[in-house]
């Protein structure tokens, strides 16, 4: 799976939880879930659960601690996929 595919998939996952929809137009690796997309912190759990379901991986607490930007999510997904 390419970087671009993962970023696109993350975008699709976060879209329903994004309160600042215009920020989706500039969506890239540097997009911040809370500061840019204004996803509330309770919905961030839904993002994490959706990522787990989508890739069939488990995001442990240490990884979850760092899930703040698209780049973080991509790095965590790649490392969990590689460890499978």
């Amino acid at each position, binding site marked *: 799976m390419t970087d671009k595919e993962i970023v696109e998939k993350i975008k699709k996952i976060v879209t329903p939880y994004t309160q600042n929809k215009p920020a989706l137009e500039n969506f890239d690796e540097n997009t911040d879930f*809370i*500061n840019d997309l204004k996803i*509330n912190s309770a919905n961030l759990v839904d993002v994490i*659960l959706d990522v*787990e379901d989508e890739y069939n991986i488990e995001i442990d*607490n240490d990884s*979850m601690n760092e899930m*703040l930007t698209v780049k973080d999510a991509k790095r965590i997904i790649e490392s969990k996929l590689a460890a499978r």
Partner: protein
Amino acid sequence: MIGNDIIDFTLFLKETNWKRPNFLNKIYTVKEQEQILNAPDPPVLIAIFWAMKEATYKAHHRKFSLPRKYNPSNYECSLSEKEVNGIISGDIKILDNKYAAEIWKSETFIHCTAKASEVKIFQKIYKEEVDIKSEIITHYSDFKPLNPLDFSIRKDENYIPQIFHLEEELNVPFSISHDGAYSAFILALTNS
């Protein structure tokens, strides 16, 4: 140090799918999950614990100038049995730190304050669209008293909001929260 959190409970009930597999164990400790599942009305306890964790996160990160981290299950909440004048009290542990919480629960919102040590606070809850930063500045400059136009609120490098007077960062303990129709702030009443 202090922190707060407000939850629009009507919105919370509508948007939180807490029965989703693994939802509870991503956020809550094993002990909290047991209490939630045994509660007569689980969503109330889910929201109260959540507000306690958020309010404490804000106090803790402000106290130690910590970078952001998404670690709700590291905050261990406990509640006292009794409710006094509509206020529920509790405490929260994070690593070796302990914070005292006061929770105000109505039918439509839950507001929690967390304190690292006893300090008097001014708090205000709004149920309408409001420019919360200018509300805080108005109240803070009234206490001093100084010209409100000389104040601003900006986030620091850890995304923690700070009050500035002219260009000087004041390290005033305060906290802001928004959710749905509600906004709230708390401000420590100190002489500094």
